């Protein structure tokens, strides 16, 4: 008798096969966790490379290449940053942007003046401004640092930042994988975080939409959209390494990976097609930018190209934030950019 009931239950559950639960699971296992692990791997590579350069066993070009890969992995992860990395000030430890007052230079130099032989504990206890990729970029690319001639001063910091990042990403990946961790919370419902797959999917979509909104800010701020059209080149993300556009592209790719899975839930073929096209347009235009963003924003002739890219990002955001959210019956909620 009991087996009959059990059988009925199994049949019932199979019949259910909630497509949203299925998509949440796919996203967690095939998109979100792998992106976190890729980011962790890039931090490990950065640590190895920093040590090697500081031991004079690697060329600066190689260290810079590895650093770019870390930036890219982090940029791709941002629209996928649901859960542990978004909590506390973890993500703030990875990057400090915008940095209008050049806090990164001031705080980095002040830290190294205070602690001649910087140790890990001192760095781990310091401000987020000096713990992340922004400070690493400053050391590697700022003319004032002249890293090649000042290895002794800056190497403890370079290795320290890479180690800090690697420990941070190890902790985050562990928070995903541990029993009852983020992966489980995105795949078994209800749990402490999500009452249902719907809620989980809403959470993922919200982070992804916020990620696209942040891209508008990252493009619009240096363009001067908040400054009467006067360009603000130093407010471009990653302006020192001239990596802004590459970061934007990686973030769009991350956002699109979420969309590819959610797409299966959208009954409106016209809407799905519009969103596909919007991603393609934005990616094509980003890939076609002929010069670093901080240079383009200062060049009058480049304005139409940047304006049209901004308009396309805006269109993409609205398609997802309004039309897609409505189609799925998901409330996007507030994000950290509201109120700017």
């Amino acid at each position, binding site marked *: 008798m009991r087996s009959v*009931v059990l059988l*009925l239950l199994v049949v*019932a559950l199979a019949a259910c096969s909630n497509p949203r639960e299925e998509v949440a699971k796919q996203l967690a296992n095939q998109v979100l966790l792998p992106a976190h692990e890729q980011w962790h791997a890039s931090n490990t590579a950065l640590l190895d490379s920093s040590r090697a350069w500081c031991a004079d066993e690697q060329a600066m070009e190689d260290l810079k290449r590895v650093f770019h890969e870390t930036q890219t992995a982090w940029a791709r992860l941002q629209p996928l940053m649901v859960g542990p990395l978004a909590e506390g000030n973890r993500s*703030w430890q990875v990057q400090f942007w915008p940095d209008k007052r050049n806090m990164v230079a001031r705080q980095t130099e002040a830290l190294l003046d205070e602690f001649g032989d910087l140790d890990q504990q001192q760095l781990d*206890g*310091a401000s*987020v401004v000096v713990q992340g990729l922004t400070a690493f970029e400053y050391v590697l690319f700022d003319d004032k640092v002249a890293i090649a001639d000042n290895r002794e001063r800056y190497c403890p910091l370079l290795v320290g930042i890479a180690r800090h990042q690697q420990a941070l990403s190890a902790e985050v990946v562990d928070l995903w994988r541990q029993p009852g961790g983020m992966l489980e919370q995105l795949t078994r419902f209800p749990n402490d975080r999500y009452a249902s797959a719907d809620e989980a999917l809403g959470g993922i979509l919200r982070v992804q939409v916020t990620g696209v909104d942040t891209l508008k800010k990252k493009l619009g701020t240096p363009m001067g959209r908040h400054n009467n059209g006067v360009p603000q*080149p130093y407010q471009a993300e990653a302006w020192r390494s001239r990596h802004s556009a590459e970061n934007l592209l990686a973030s769009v790719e991350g956002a699109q990976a979420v969309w590819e899975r959610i797409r299966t839930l959208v009954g409106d073929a016209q809407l799905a097609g519009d969103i596909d096209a919007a991603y393609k347009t934005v990616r094509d235009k980003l890939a076609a930018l002929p010069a670093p963003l901080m240079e383009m924003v200062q060049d009058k002739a480049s304005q139409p190209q940047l304006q049209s890219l901004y308009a396309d990002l805006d269109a993409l955001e609205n398609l997802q934030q309004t039309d897609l959210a409505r189609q799925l019956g998901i409330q*996007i909620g507030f994000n950290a950019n509201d*109120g700017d």
Partner: protein
Amino acid sequence: MLSRLSTGGLLLASLLLTACSEEPSATAEPAYDEARARLVIDHYADMALAAYSDALSEARELRGQIDTLLTDPNEETLAAARQAWRDARAPYMQTEVFRFGNVVVDEWEGQVNAWPLDEGLIDYVDDNYQAVMGNPGARGNIIASQSLKIGEQQLDLSELTPELLASLNELGGSEANVATGYHAIEFLLWGQDLNGTDAGAGERPATDFATGNDATGGHNERRRDYLKVVADLLISDLEAMVAEWQPNQDNYRAELVADSVENGLRKMLFGMGSLSLGELAGERMKVALAAHSPEDEHDCFSDNTHFSHFYNGKGIENVYLGEYQRVDGETLSGPSLSDLVAASEPQLDDRLKADLNASEAALQTLVDSAANGVHFDQLIAPGNAEGAATVNRAIDALVEQTASIEKAALVLDIQALNPDTANHSF
């Protein structure tokens, strides 16, 4: 026996099937009584009117104290002017919940409360002053200058008028160029806070406003003019905003009440959530804390930040509860969002009220800490774990209440929260 059990199983199965249905179950009943909701929106406008009117009357008090200071500049008259500025902030900070969502406020706000500023645009600064990179006006020093060259443009500064000062905001395209509003007045009354994350606020001497032999600072007639003019401009700006909220006029309020109830409720909720999360918890607390940056403190010259944050929080609570205590002590009370939410989901209403209480208590600890001599800029100092915990508790409480605000919006059938994009279609 068997049949009973299988019936149970079937019942279970049908429940599961219902649970995984894709369509949200259609509610036959509307989310709220429309006539009642109209009263809520109208009362919201009444609260805005009362709060802006209070901000205006307190700004006029401040203007009076500034006159007294300029007539007889000494430490007592300076202290009285500073206290009047602090008093003026209490109602103003409670109006900020009206800023997000109501475009008329958001567009007006820059001239009134823009922050953080490169104060070197206005007056003398310390050698170690750090301005925004690439800001051409960062050391403009309007008080010491008869003219200013920005790029190709030569500006005549010889006569300080409200129009001139207003035109200098965002000079050269930098939002850090703030020539007007509460924070410009704050800088003139206190001067730079050179104590970093240690104890102490700005220490401008009253003699910076003197004209006799004891005068300090230089260009004192200009500084005196500047202070009067910038306070006058604040008053006229607040007068304009009070006029926007008067009933039965051709103004913003008329638009708001003529619009759909849904849009009105959306604006109320968007103001609450945006101030709670992005602005107060994020821009005004988390940035300063994470970077240990006193320059990102809201009231960085006066060290009055604890009260600014507290009254921001109070404003959010006011809008939800439909209550506002005026500066004369009278309480304005009326139909509220809380009533609408309680009518369909009393548990959520209780939850949100509890969240608002919790965030108020957490923000109160910032005020208590300041009363004990430890101000916001000391709480965010590197190595101050206890201070960081105090600020983080306030941030966490605001984040939590924002989640309940979102749920309240859903109860009122509002999914898209941003009024700018809610009606967007392609």
